[in-house]
């Protein structure tokens, strides 16, 4: 393209510079000198043009080479992605096997301890009872450790799904206090609950929320000295309307600000004040954070060294029914897979389609609230999809997620605006924020975006 433009420019210049020489009158003949000058100039120009042409040819060759290299790099990337995906699956199944192989002997050990404790193999004296109690407790700790590892793996690979049902948080907290009461009593810690009396039922995953609560309260009990106090409060969140807030406050040693910032990180272990080695693998609070986030909430800690800590989390009251239904259209399977996992992990309901035709077919069956589409796709491309959406579904929010759209396709797309344009690669957070912003009428999930 450029070379043609340049060539015609040069031709124009040449024409201009040729004109002022002199107008040749009829019958007049060019002098030898003039002809020579003119021919010289012409051949100079021709040489320049030829040079420009060959230069642009070189450029074209280089461009082609770059393009080929890019395509090769993309193919290599695709290959390595496939490889990683395969590895990921292998790791998953490896973890499942390891978990199974660890739990089977653990079950057996725990069972035989229980059989002894229950006196099924004859009466036991007090010391024997006590020792077996310790052994059983160790089995329980081991089980929690295995479960944490499995949960972390599920979170990493986006395989953790929540079972959201409306339930009573007050009941859950009461159960927890009953279960952990003896643990608190052993350290003469007052375990106390203050739950707002008219707390409404709201949807959550009972097992997972219990896991979060138990983890936080267990931690509080562990780090609170004898005769201390651990308080669980729950009620409407004062700073987050439409959400429930739970706080677990203790009178323990507190957490230094530098630690508090990192405490929810995966594998982070808080160094102990007495220089001892920290307990656990550093997954507990990380899992708590991920589980709270999967509920659409957030978790944080406020603490001062020597003055105890308060771990708080908020969870929106309305959300299970509010899971935003997103249709993701992209011809690249890897991209679809990636986005499905990322979005589902954030509580979105995700449908995917490999091209526009499939997308429109799926839209007829299940109406998504937001459509995210690539532009350049085989068969029915993004613009045609957009046109159909505008025709059949009016102003349904559409996000165009694309690499390097050329101006022509963008101009065509503009005819069917409005849409939000995001460039690939787009950070997941930005995409999620955009999706939520497109549904302003449903604020529950918006709160913590």
């Amino acid at each position, binding site marked *: 393209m450029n070379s043609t433009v340049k060539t015609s420019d040069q031709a124009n210049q040449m024409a201009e510079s040729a004109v002022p020489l002199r107008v040749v009158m009829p019958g007049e003949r060019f002098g030898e000198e003039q002809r020579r000058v003119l021919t010289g100039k012409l051949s100079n120009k021709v040489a320049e043009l030829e040079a420009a042409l060959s230069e642009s040819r070189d450029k074209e060759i280089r461009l082609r080479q770059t393009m080929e290299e890019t395509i090769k790099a993309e193919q290599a990337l695709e290959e390595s992605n496939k490889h990683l995906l395969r590895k990921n699956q292998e790791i998953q199944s490896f973890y499942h096997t390891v*978990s199974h192989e660890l739990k089977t002997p653990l079950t057996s050990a725990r*069972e035989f301890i229980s*059989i002894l404790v229950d006196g099924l193999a004859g009466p036991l004296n007090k010391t024997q009872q006590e020792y077996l109690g310790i052994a059983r407790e160790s089995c329980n700790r081991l089980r929690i450790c295995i479960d944490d590892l499995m949960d972390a793996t599920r979170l990493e690979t986006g395989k953790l799904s929540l079972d959201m049902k409306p339930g009573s948080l007050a009941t859950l907290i009461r159960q927890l206090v009953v279960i952990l009461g003896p643990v608190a009593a052993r350290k003469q810690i007052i375990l106390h609950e203050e739950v707002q009396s008219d707390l409404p039922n709201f949807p959550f995953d009972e097992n997972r929320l219990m896991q979060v609560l138990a983890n936080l309260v267990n931690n509080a009990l562990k780090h609170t000295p004898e005769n201390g106090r651990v308080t669980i409060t729950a009620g409407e969140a004062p700073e987050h309307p439409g959400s429930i807030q739970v706080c677990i406050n203790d009178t323990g040693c507190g957490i230094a600000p530098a630690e508090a910032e990192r405490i929810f990180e995966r594998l982070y272990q808080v160094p102990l004040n007495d220089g001892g080695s920290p307990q656990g693998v550093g997954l507990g609070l990380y899992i708590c954070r991920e589980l709270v986030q999967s509920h659409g909430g957030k978790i944080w800690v406020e603490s001062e060294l020597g003055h105890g800590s308060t771990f708080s989390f908020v969870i929106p009251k309305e959300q299970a029914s509010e899971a935003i239904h997103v249709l993701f259209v992209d011809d690249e399977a890897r991209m679809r897979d990636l986005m499905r996992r990322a979005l589902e992990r954030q509580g979105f309901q995700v449908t995917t389609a490999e091209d526009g035709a499939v997308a429109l077919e799926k839209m007829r069956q299940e109406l998504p609230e937001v459509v995210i589409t690539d532009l350049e796709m085989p068969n029915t491309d993004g613009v045609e999809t957009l046109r159909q959406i505008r025709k059949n579904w009016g102003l349904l929010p559409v996000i165009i997620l694309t690499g390097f759209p050329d101006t022509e396709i963008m101009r065509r797309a503009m005819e069917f605006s409005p849409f939000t344009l995001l460039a690939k690669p787009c950070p997941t957070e930005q995409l999620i924020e955009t999706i939520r912003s497109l549904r302003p009428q449903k604020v529950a999930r918006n709160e913590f975006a």
Partner: protein
Amino acid sequence: MKTTTMEQTEKQRKKILVVEDDKTISMALAIRLRSYGYETTVAGDSVSGLETARKIRPDLVLLDISLPAGNGFVVAERIQMLIPTPTPMIFLTASTQPGLREKAKELGAAAFFQKPYDADDLRGAVQLALAGPPVIEERRVYQL
């Protein structure tokens, strides 16, 4: 072993079949179930599990899910085909593979336990399953 528990006072002792490939776990289960007064038979794989079921017509089957030669679900389905009266099934598994609980539910299981299970909860589930039609789902148990 002496059995004096209330389950035993029934005229006819209830029969439980345990299909579990880990010998130590099946042994522990048998010790427990016998102590509750149930007649307990143990099978270590799918094939012998089915054969034993055909022979003894158990009142309840306790099934591990991952078994040599076919999994617990297959055994459950075959037993249901084999025995005309509905036989309550309780599944036990150490596997963390997703979807197992749902599959068990689909098959009409009386209960579903993750290993390590709680002995008291298992006893409760067994009692309930033997008392009537399978009505319970997995009990909400928080092992902390």
